């Protein structure tokens, strides 16, 4: 998902850079306030860990292999602001030393992978694990959150590419979303398994990260939410709004006069694109919703599988905030 240089144009890069600088600046400020000094080296080590963990390939069906992205996992372990800083550091090093992702598109990459992926992953993780208490609920919540965050980051990436005019939205959105709905399965599975293994071996590491109450996190998440909403409004909304145009041309095709179609539909601008392609976008959105429900079911099953039926007093259960 690392966008190289040359793939997004000036306006997209500038908009994404402004959003990312604001987000990362806020994250640094939060981390400085809330992180005890003895945890400062942990940020650098967690970044090195994430880089190495991303190099461990796991097998995906059909002989191919995928790798961890890890924003949600790090956010669940260290909290959202620390995760934003950690993933941003990984992206900077990958960009400058290993030429993975471009310099001008660094802002866009930080927005998708550090801010959208970590923060949305964390928010979904906290909300779902609030509904499903206990160790099993936490595992299920993390698997589901990692899947959602991967798909949403891919959508952000597709939106930026489309806004730049590199790939048309009607091609980028279905392609990126479908591929990452599959990649997300691996991401969710490996994140949940790693999290389960860490909370078995060193429950104290996991308890510490889940100490902050929802009230403390609320203000933090509101600002990130604002940034992400702004990003969606810029990168994705212009394309989403053109769906009625697709309906418009279908209406025309079926012999409904343009005036009636205009009266029925809010966007009267004539659209000369093939309606089938618009349906592909709509169908992908529908598939995304259906996929989310299926993955949620799978995540619940995974929670049952990874956390054995326990008596009271097992460390995993005590970690429940």
């Amino acid at each position, binding site marked *: *998902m*690392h*966008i*190289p*240089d*040359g*793939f997004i*144009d*000036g306006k997209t890069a500038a908009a994404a850079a402004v959003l990312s600088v604001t987000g*990362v600046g806020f994250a640094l400020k939060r*981390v*400085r306030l809330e992180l005890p*000094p003895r945890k*400062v*080296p*942990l*940020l*650098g*080590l*967690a*970044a*090195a*860990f994430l*880089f*190495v*963990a991303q*190099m*461990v390939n*796991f*097998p995906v069906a059909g002989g191919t292999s995928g790798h961890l992205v890890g924003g949600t996992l790090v956010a669940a372990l260290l909290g959202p602001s620390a995760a934003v*800083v*950690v993933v*941003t*550091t990984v992206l900077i*090093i990958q*960009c*400058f*030393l*290993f*030429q993975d992702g*471009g*310099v*001008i598109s660094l802002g866009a990459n930080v927005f998708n992978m550090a801010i959208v992926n970590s923060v949305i992953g964390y928010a979904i993780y906290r909300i779902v694990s609030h509904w499903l208490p206990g160790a099993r609920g936490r595992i299920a919540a993390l698997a589901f959150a990692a899947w959602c965050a991967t798909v949403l980051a891919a959508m952000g990436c597709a939106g930026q*590419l489309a806004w730049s005019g*590199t*790939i048309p939205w009607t*091609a*980028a959105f279905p*392609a990126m979303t479908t591929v990452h709905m599959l990649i997300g399965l691996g991401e969710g*599975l*490996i994140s949940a*398994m*790693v*999290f*389960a*293994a*860490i909370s078995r*071996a*060193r429950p104290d*590491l996991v308890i510490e990260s889940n100490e902050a109450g929802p009230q403390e996190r609320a203000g933090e998440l509101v600002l990130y939410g604002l940034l992400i909403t702004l990003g969606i409004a810029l990168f994705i909304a212009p394309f989403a709004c053109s769906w009625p145009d697709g309906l418009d041309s279908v209406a025309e095709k079926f012999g409904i006069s343009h005036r009636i179609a205009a009266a029925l539909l809010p966007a009267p601008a004539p659209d000369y694109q093939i309606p089938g392609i618009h349906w592909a976008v709509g169908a992908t959105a529908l598939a995304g919703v259906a996929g989310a429900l299926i993955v949620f079911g799978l995540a619940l099953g995974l929670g049952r599988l990874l956390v054995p039926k326990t008596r009271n007093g097992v460390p995993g259960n005590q970690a429940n905030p």
Partner: protein
Amino acid sequence: MSIDWLRHQHGHPDSPLHSLPAELKLGFGFGVILVTVLAPIEWSTWFICAALGLGVTALLSRLPLLFLSRRLLALSPFVLGVVLVNAFEPAGRGHWLAVSVKSVLCLLTVILVSNTTPFSQILRALKFIRIPALLITTIALMHRYLFVLMEESERMRRARASRTFKRGQRFHWRLLATIVSQLFIRASERAERIYDAMCARGWK
């Protein structure tokens, strides 16, 4: 990806490019990338000039050409994916060509700058442009311990390979998760030790 592949080579430290100040190289490299990204497709003169200039710089840097071309050829799968998607668009051939040229030029610039500038100088340049200290500390620590953790994961993998006779698919996932989680635990324990060592040396 092996460790050797990621380890960047600094070539001959006595080349004219290595001795230039880091701020100059970084600024110049950023400028070239910025213009290349923003340039419209019609500016073919700029693309040719940039390609020639970068070629001469590559020779001046005395980096092994094999190393440079290997790095260039390893364009991420992302580029290939986008190229494939664009290949099916009948109208976008010229556009696709421009995108590929732009990304190759930018890639070459970053490779040249990053392989002729020691990392400590890059950090100093980051400090110079007022990147917050916490971020610089994190970047410096990550770079310092990146290869340490990579070797640690390599050791764990070797130990695992020498102990497990045959691996099944499900077992394989479990092993990977164990290795990654152990890596995190060892990283956080190392972070504690580093903090003590930093305090002992007067860090605050």
